[in-house]
């Protein structure tokens, strides 16, 4: 299949390779969106990659009071991990340290899922015997006395084993400024899609990695083929006109969600165009042998 050219931008004849993951979703509410967001941002900090963070997490979307269980502003957060046990551990730690601690917050299940994992059930003991269980209809909540009143947390949240992590786009531009602008446009478009997150800072990663390193202790190292300063020194994937590369990594609750996110990102990049400084769009893969999910750029662009 030949390369595509859209609005002057070359779309590489390649595919993004992604992996099956476990994922969950929670809803954090607070008296104001500011504090719900603060809890969500804190909870999803240092959650860019499972390589060293234990999980990948991010904000899916803002919820109106009419969409949340307690009719307050809310934020939906998605968390991805490589195993159920790691997901439970990360969820409990981040819930306890980042949401429980944040003024006025409450926490609820953000998805039904195939299975249920502990949410409030994991941190209720913080109440030291003063925690209160409330079963309202079919949903059990835990009320934990805290210094500003009560922290209310739904007992469990959903877990999906059908999540996908590692959808990606490699954005290659003339220079740093134009490449960052293109990446920001793609992030904005992908953010509008439901059930996906981009776990890296602002949704963008500038230090794409390859598996392995010349140093035995490191499981991953810089993706030298895409480093513009190494053109000519390594087997570079970059052409002469590419001066900067940024990557967007997409995790989604389903294959379809990641696909939709990739499509939205690609579409935005094509609109951004070559005149604004975008040269090529590629994707990272491992030859197709490691990841179960493949996203060919041409097919996704349609």
């Amino acid at each position: 299949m030949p390369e595509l050219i859209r609005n002057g931008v070359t779309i590489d004849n390649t595919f993004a390779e992604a992996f099956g993951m476990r994922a969950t979703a929670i809803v954090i509410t607070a008296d104001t969106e500011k504090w719900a967001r603060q809890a969500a941002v804190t909870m999803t900090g240092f959650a860019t990659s499972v390589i060293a963070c234990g999980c990948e997490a991010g904000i899916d979307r803002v919820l109106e009071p009419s969409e949340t269980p307690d009719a307050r502003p809310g934020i939906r957060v998605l968390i991805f991990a490589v195993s159920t046990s790691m997901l439970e551990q990360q969820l409990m730690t981040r819930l306890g340290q980042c949401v429980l601690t944040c003024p006025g917050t409450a926490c609820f299940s953000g998805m039904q899922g195939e299975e249920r994992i502990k949410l409030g059930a994991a941190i209720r003991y913080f109440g030291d015997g003063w925690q209160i269980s409330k079963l309202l209809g079919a949903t059990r909540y835990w009320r934990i006395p805290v210094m500003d009143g009560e922290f209310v947390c739904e007992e469990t949240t959903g877990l999906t084993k059908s999540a996908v992590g590692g959808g990606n786009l490699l954005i290659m531009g003339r220079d740093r400024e134009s490449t960052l602008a293109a990446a920001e446009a793609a992030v904005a478009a992908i953010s509008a899609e439901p059930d996906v997150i981009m776990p890296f800072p602002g949704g963008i990663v500038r230090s794409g990695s390859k598996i392995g390193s010349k140093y035995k202790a490191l499981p991953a190292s810089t993706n030298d083929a895409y480093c513009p300063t190494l053109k000519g020194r390594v087997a570079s994937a970059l052409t002469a006109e590419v001066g900067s590369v940024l990557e967007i990594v997409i995790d989604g609750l389903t294959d379809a969600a990641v696909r939709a996110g990739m499509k939205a990102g690609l579409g935005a990049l094509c609109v951004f165009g070559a005149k604004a400084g975008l040269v090529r769009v590629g994707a990272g893969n491992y030859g197709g042998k490691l990841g179960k999910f493949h996203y060919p750029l041409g097919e996704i662009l349609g």
Partner: protein
Amino acid sequence: MSALVLTLQQEPPQRCDLSALTADRLAAATGRIEAIDIRTTRTPLAVGDIFSVTSGDAADIVFEGGSERFDNLGVGMSTGRIRVTGDLGQRAGRGMAGGAIFVSGSVGVLAGSGMAGGRMEIGGDAGDLLGAPLPGEASGMTGGVIRVGGSAGARAGDRMRRGLIAIGGDAGEYLGSRMFGGTIVCLGRAGPLPGYLMTRGTIITASGVDSLSPTFIDTGPHELVALRLISRWLTEEGIEGGALSATRLRRFAGDTAVLGKGELFLPEA
């Protein structure tokens, strides 16, 4: 398929045991409905003696006419719907696990006693011991929803463990006595000593109480997320609650006479 309709033809000459007239029991029954024995004395009395029966779906039973002598209706039911135009006697819906009972009039003592699931709606008043256990039983209501349009008698929700009781009018003395879970909402005024010896659970009285036990500790007015959740739950259950639109209520903790960790919410003022 249309409903199974039992139309009252005459006042019952004795108290009647209507426990056999549920979807569960009728599915297992043989013979004609008119022949079902409903006597509670040695004098024979069958369904056909006081009702005219229009056959239909036993999962939807309609009583055209009720009586305070109709006892045990819906006892142990797990499915189906029973609608009653009129009153019922004692133990309506006792031990029900599912399905729904709608009574346009009032019910006697021990309605919803030991109820584990399902829904009971009473348009009029409820007698004493709503949802309560019989003597010797460990717990009263363990699930489901009871909604009373009028007032409830003494000791509604006694030894309640789970579920919801919503009383549109006033409640008698000892509302939620000995309860150890669940939620009771009284939109009217509660009689003396609500929450007497309660150890867990939530009682909300929107219009205040006649007198409160000194063993309840005033923890002050609070604006709690839990009240928002309860308020939303009530809305989902079709129960519109006057003061429950206010999420700031005064919380009393108790009953400390039994080292309880229950709670009683009253209007802030």
